[in-house]
């Protein structure tokens, strides 16, 4: 089988081998220009309006901002736009029911009242920065620490190849970027993701992690391939001590083919994290139809087997950035609704589509907490951008229980909103009133909770009592014990680009020129944002070498030897990680 062994992993061979057989193709429906304009005329315009819905998109070829139609056909949701070179259609959501169900939880309020550019946003997404039109504050700030990388992924145009300019912001620039997002008004960023390239290649990484905490960030996560962490237990210890909360780690599948980046190294990474006592790991599978979409259930099962260190799985349906022929898009396109369906199939219907909630449901919960405690944090992305749920492991009965089997999530969130409305009418909320209200909420919570179906050992009622009656929210952290967070975040590309999603984006990149840019403009229009600004702030190869005389490009790179994979294949730690594991869903076909 094709494998990245005896070389710097690039994934090219594995991708070719795994795409030789096509299991299914998404047939895009045809729509004529006349039909398109007729539909556009009658389409809804307000955010979250029923289908057909009018929005704006980007022409993949000319980059013009063009009108687009989000519409339904055969139970699926499509996006079609009229570009100068013709009509372009792509899949928006595989399931219209999921689309409408998520739309119900949309958040319409604007939560950001500061800007970083004078542009008004009328030319969105060409005005980014943040502009005054942007509606959501930064929930997760990304800072690119370097474009150096230890892998050489065949599809990546971003990492610095030999001889190419190197982008690596100074500590002073990083501090400024952190401050800029922290001072957004009225709600500053609180979580930062240090990303790359490969951020562990920076020698001053520990200093940067500490700096993020100094600047008031509560959550620091490291977006990494984990390779360095496999071979340097001391580094794992140091990044944990410095305050890294989460390793946001690439993990694309269960075999060396589907997960060519770090399949062989993962057992060592896990061992090192266990020894260091953290940080918690979130696995990040980039999800691609016909490539690894048959392994989503197995990835969840794998994570449940390592629940002592794995806190979550965040599936990222592929973003097909760049010019991609229609045939290829039909082969590889999968959306959140499609991934949810796969998970339902691959977990024997243990995790079903009704178990998932869109990200902006958090906005409705945040409203209550703002009224009740004064704390402000609004995760108010577009309803189509992401989804999440929690599943709990009942170890005694070896069963997996999604949260809404024992908690009426929708009912409880609805109740919290009612309470928020009530509190908002009050002029003040004194201690006694708060205690009384806390007790009332706790009593009411019992009616949304069913102990019979809750996993054993999970003392939900105690946690809720502590939170609402005694203001002890730290206790809610215990909720994560025996729980696995499951998330999805579908970053866009030129073909499914929806400007309405961009203006509500909550995952942003800081740039050293003072701008803060939504993820899907930073990466989808790199010639205006990512690549351009990094070119302005890069060092030429010669400048970099002069500044770092001991640096050697080849030493940055990871060379996976045949001896290493053989040693791993026969090791106890490999067996413990991949083979001697429980099958919680009774469906696993793929074993390493």
């Amino acid at each position, binding site marked *: 089988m094709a494998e990245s062994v005896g070389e710097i992993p690039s994934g090219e061979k594995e991708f070719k081998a795994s795409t030789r057989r096509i299991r299914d193709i998404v047939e895009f429906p045809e729509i004529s220009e006349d039909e398109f304009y007729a539909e556009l005329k009658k389409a809804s315009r307000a955010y979250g309006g029923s289908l057909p819905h009018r929005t704006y998109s980007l022409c993949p070829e000319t980059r013009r*901002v063009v009108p687009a139609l989000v519409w339904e056909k055969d139970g699926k949701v499509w996006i079609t736009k009229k570009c100068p070179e013709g009509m372009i259609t792509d899949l928006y959501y595989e399931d219209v029911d999921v689309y409408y169900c998520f739309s119900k939880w949309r958040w319409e309020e604007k939560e950001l009242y500061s800007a970083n550019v004078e542009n008004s946003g009328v030319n969105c997404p060409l005005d980014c920065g943040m502009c005054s039109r942007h509606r959501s504050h930064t929930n997760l700030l990304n800072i690119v620490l370097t474009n150096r990388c230890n892998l050489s992924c065949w599809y990546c145009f971003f990492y610095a190849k030999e001889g190419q300019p190197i982008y690596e912001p100074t500590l002073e620039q990083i501090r400024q970027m952190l401050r800029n997002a922290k001072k957004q008004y009225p709600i500053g960023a609180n979580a930062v993701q240090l990303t790359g390239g490969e951020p562990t290649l920076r020698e001053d990484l520990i200093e940067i992690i500490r700096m993020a905490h100094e600047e008031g960030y509560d959550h620091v996560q490291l977006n990494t391939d984990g390779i360095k962490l496999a071979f340097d237990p001391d580094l794992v210890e140091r990044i944990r001590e410095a305050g890294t909360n989460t390793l946001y780690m690439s993990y694309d599948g269960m075999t060396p083919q589907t997960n060519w980046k770090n399949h062989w190294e993962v057992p060592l990474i896990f061992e090192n994290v266990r020894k260091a006592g953290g940080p918690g790991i979130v696995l990040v599978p980039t999800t691609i139809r016909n490539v690894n979409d048959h392994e989503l259930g197995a990835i969840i099962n794998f994570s449940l087997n390592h629940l002592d260190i794995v806190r979550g799985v965040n599936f990222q349906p592929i973003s097909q950035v760049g010019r991609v022929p229609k045939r290829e898009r039909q082969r590889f396109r999968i959306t959140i609704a499609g991934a949810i369906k796969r998970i339902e199939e691959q977990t024997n219907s243990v995790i079903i589509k009704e178990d998932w909630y869109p990200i902006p449901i958090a906005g409705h919960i945040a409203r209550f907490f703002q009224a009740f405690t004064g704390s402000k944090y609004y995760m108010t992305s577009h309803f189509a951008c992401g989804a999440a749920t929690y599943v709990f492991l009942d170890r005694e009965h070896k069963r997996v229980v999604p949260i809404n089997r024992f908690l009426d999530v929708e009912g409880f969130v609805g109740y919290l909103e009612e309470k928020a409305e009530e509190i908002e009418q009050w002029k003040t909320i004194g201690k006694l009133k708060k205690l009384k209200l806390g007790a009332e909420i706790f009593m009411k919570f019992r009616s949304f909770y069913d102990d019979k179906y809750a996993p054993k050992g999970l003392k939900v009622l105690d946690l809720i009592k502590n939170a609402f009656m005694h203001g002890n929210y730290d206790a809610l952290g215990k909720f994560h014990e025996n729980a696995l967070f499951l998330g999805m975040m579908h970053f866009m590309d030129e073909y499914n680009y929806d400007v309405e999603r961009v203006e509500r984006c909550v995952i942003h990149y800081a740039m050293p*020129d003072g701008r803060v840019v939504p993820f899907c403009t930073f990466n989808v229009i790199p*010639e205006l944002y990512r690549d351009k600004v990094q070119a302005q702030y890069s060092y030429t190869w010669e400048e970099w070498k002069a500044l770092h005389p001991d640096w050697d490009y080849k030493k940055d790179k990871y060379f996976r030897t045949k001896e290493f994979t053989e040693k791993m294949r026969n090791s106890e730690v490999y067996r413990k990680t991949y083979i001697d594991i429980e099958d919680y869903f009774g469906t696993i076909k793929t074993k390493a």
Partner: protein
Amino acid sequence: MSVKPDKELVRLDLKFGNIDWERATIKQYELEKELAIWRIFLNGYTKKGFVVFDEGLITKEKILEALAELQPEITAIKRLTVGELVESSMSWNNILKGARAG
């Protein structure tokens, strides 16, 4: 070398005699791609705009030439440094008027 904060830039404030939203976005994209352009905003509705650029890489004349079909007229020229541009972008300097109470 990575940009120094004292690097000098030029800002042109403009008004346009012949512009609409579509042509404004097309022109903004064309110019915005250039490494020499640090900031640009062409508003097809108010018929105003501005360009902040590195005079060492592109001249004022070249910019006006690129915008010619929009019939640009310079209303102000200002010099600023990269450091000043970055500082002026910071969130604390740009709280929106009429912002909702925090």
